[in-house]
């Protein structure tokens, strides 16, 4: 088992708007010294509520924002030390799936165009067979490439978003609340699809959600966050069977366990 992502004591602070002229503005610690490692092909779930820092952590792993301290290594490379063009090339290897299946596709573009978007960064010509292959892998038809996003249901759009994420054959997928907006029966279909694709393509996944039941169904490892702090980190089975923290217990109650 080789390490793919290594996050070492990463912190991120936000300066709040200044409320008093003479007082220093408040500083909000979004992520406080978070650490984890993610092996190739494995799945780490990050659970927490809004404001827990889980999305900020995901954004730092995706190199959308830089940590104030600590380091994030992807396949041994510190991604926040890379130059802009090196980082753009590196992005082929880690892709993201978003929460809102209605917002993550440009409404004015055919879905084939959107799916091929990551390929265009490195290819001058986009090979149509790759788009078709990605569409079929997520359970849609190659002919769907010529349709617009509004012609699809929420679950189908999430499949399209997944097709875009896997079209470059990445090593890592970051899924930020990727099934939270979906109906229960659609949710199960998408979770199964993600598991199938992982097994088929050897993808590692960082799965972020507020719903412990969803995370429990797909993750090997679990990291529970609250107010930017890591409360628990370890094997999913162990944390779910013997939660060490009251907060984790309350999440279990809410998930209907």
């Amino acid at each position: 088992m080789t390490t793919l992502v290594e996050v070492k004591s990463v912190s991120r602070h936000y300066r709040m708007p200044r409320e008093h002229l003479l007082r220093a503005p408040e500083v909000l610690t979004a992520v406080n010294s978070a650490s984890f490692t993610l092996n190739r092909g494995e799945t780490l779930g990050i659970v927490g509520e809004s404001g827990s820092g889980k999305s900020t952590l995901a954004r730092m792993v995706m190199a959308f924002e830089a940590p104030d301290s600590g380091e994030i290594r992807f396949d041994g490379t510190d991604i926040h030390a890379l130059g802009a063009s090196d980082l753009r090339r590196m992005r082929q290897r880690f892709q993201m799936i978003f929460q809102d299946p209605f917002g993550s596709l440009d409404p004015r573009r055919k879905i084939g165009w959107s799916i091929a978007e990551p390929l265009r960064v490195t290819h001058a010509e986009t090979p149509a067979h790759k788009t078709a292959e990605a569409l079929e892998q997520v359970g849609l038809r190659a002919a769907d490439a010529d349709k617009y996003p509004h012609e699809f249901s929420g679950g189908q759009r999430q499949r399209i978003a997944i097709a875009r994420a896997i079209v470059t054959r990445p090593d890592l997928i970051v899924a930020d609340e990727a099934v939270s907006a979906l109906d229960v029966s659609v949710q199960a279909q998408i979770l199964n699809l993600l598991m199938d694709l992982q097994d088929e393509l050897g993808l590692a996944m960082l799965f972020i959600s507020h719903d412990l039941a969803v995370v429990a169904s797909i993750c090997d490892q679990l990291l529970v966050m609250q107010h930017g702090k890591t409360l628990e980190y370890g094997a999913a089975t162990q944390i779910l069977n013997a939660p060490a923290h009251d907060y984790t217990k309350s999440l279990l109650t809410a998930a209907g366990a």
Partner: protein
Amino acid sequence: MFDLTNLSVHFGPATALREASLTIRPGDRLGIVGESGSGKSMLALCLMGMAPEAATLSGTLTIDGRDMAEATERDWQALRARRVAMIFQEPMAALNPLSRVGDTVMDPLRLHLGLSKQAARARALDLFAEVGIPDPAARLRQFPHELSGGQRQRVLIALALACDPDLLIADEPTTALDANVALRITDLLVRLSAERNMALLFISHDLAAVARATSDIAVMYGGDIVERGPTRAVLDSPAHPYTRGLLGARPSATSLPRDANGKRARLPTIPGTVPGMAELPKGCRFAGRCPVELPHCASERPALTKPGPDRSAICHVLSQEVSA
């Protein structure tokens, strides 16, 4: 009190709701479970007299023995002002951002109950205390954006309670809230229903929340109420294949299930997708996706069967079992 008999809602050839029958008595806590397009929100709108203009309605709705088919918009307004209240999924969107939450709650008290400013304020303070808002006097002066999501939902509940409704319709009231907060809001609704002998119609796709909030449950699919019964009984032993599929598809928060090869087990799923309103099968709406389908399911409308005490379901397979 509220009695729906064979209520159907059509949009041209498309059916949003088919022959729905429901009775709501004071103090009932009824959950409506269903996915997008199941018709659960349409049902709530009909109870409020707020069905879209383009819809054609048939069937009867009686409220306190009065047939609402003859009701004018003015009658409905009076009903909505005093008898039925509704809370929504997104509390921020339902509050006026420019108005102090105290004024938002006091306005209907003064308008509908004719209270003086002082009396309305005193009543608002009581309501805030009742829904568990700490330091109510200070909160009255705050604006929606100064409150947390849970506090906002409590303000909306206080607003809904302002005119002592007999029925509170909660449409996905916990969906936008964090898990802990959602639990407390659910428990609050249960307490208020019991203390006030107020009926609660809890609409949600979240089975865990419905299980906690309600005593009875109606499961909807494709505009049909496919199964009804006591919440515990239905969730413990679902009768309708759709209910079984829905409960199976919901992951449980226990340890990661593994299959025989040590790989992660896949979740049970309902095959296919919900058809559009106009493409639903004529017979059982679940035909085409059902794992135990019979040849006549898609064409013939199944009759009501009783799979258990106080329970009902519409399913050909079930009626065969019962008659056999």
